[in-house]
């Protein structure tokens, strides 16, 4: 059906994922103010993309499956976006800041 990735590829992806886990922990020990959460989420997003593209092998899937996987993010952005349009723009937050 599609070409089969090598064991090497999988092990390299695993090594990067494990390294990024330690990085997340390490960065959390440094006070970056509001940037801590940004860095943590960027690393998590990067790890997620590695899992989706390589472990779930979406890289080699049909264009239709790729479209559906992408649609998941689109709906999630709509869901969270609608949430925050209310909560972050109407002065409902007692302490006023996002983080």
């Amino acid at each position, binding site marked *: *059906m599609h070409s*089969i*990735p090598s*064991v090497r590829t*999988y*092990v390299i*992806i*695993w090594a990067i*994922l*494990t390294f990024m*886990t*330690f990085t*997340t*922990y390490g960065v*959390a*020990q*440094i*006070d970056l103010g509001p940037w*801590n959460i940004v860095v*943590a*989420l960027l*690393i*998590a997003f990067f*790890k*997620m993309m590695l*899992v*989706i593209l*390589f*472990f*779930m*092998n979406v890289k080699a*899937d*049909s264009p*239709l*499956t790729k479209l*559906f*996987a992408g*649609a*998941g*993010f689109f*709906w*999630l952005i709509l*869901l*969270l976006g609608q*949430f*925050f349009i209310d*909560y*972050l723009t109407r002065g409902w*937050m*007692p*302490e006023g*800041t*996002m*983080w």
Partner: protein
Amino acid sequence: MADTHSTVVEHSEHDPAAHSPHLRHHFDDMAQQFDSATLGMWVFLLTEIMFFGGMFGAYTVYRSMYPAAFASTSQYMNPLYGAMNTAVLIVSSLTMALAVRAARLGEQKALQLFLIFTMIFGLAFLVIKGFEYHEHWVDNKVPLFGGHWDYSEAPQFARQAQIMFCFYFFMTGFHALHMVVGLGLMTTIFLMARRATFSPAYFTPVEVSGLYWHFVDIVWIFLFPLLYLIGHTKKII
């Protein structure tokens, strides 16, 4: 009608896999059947993304409301457990990916071995989680059943921190539930593999169960920094 029929016959003559006993009559060939199953699994995973997405959204709103109280809860989380569980899940995803690879190559022994490894790491995750829940119970940081809540170290946050711990138990609880379902799936796939159900022409159940397993891993990749590492740098108390 006659034309369509002859096309199908011609097609199956050219593709030996099309004669597989696993090919359902409403699919042209194994490749189409495989792509349909993968797509169907992704549609299910989209509903799962929305399910967890709602919880992540609610979490974000309350964390924005009470940032100091949420940060104070990190004192009672053990990031070592969290990091260990992240590592365990990532290894289990690796063995799962290797199991799918073995199935595609028709390596029956390797397939069974990697499925067993995946189950062992999945079980290890739940055991570590169990130890962790027990610690929260002993620490009186379980606001769900009454009588097990004590936040006298930072009384100003007592009520708001309850919200965070509710999120913690609901999000990790639903994640753990997904792990239990995943272990059930893996047991089924393992039993099927032992009966030599899978071959390079037919490994769809291994593939789609793998997609589910990796999805549960991804949820944890986000839960770890959001629940354990909120205020690790800040001394709130």
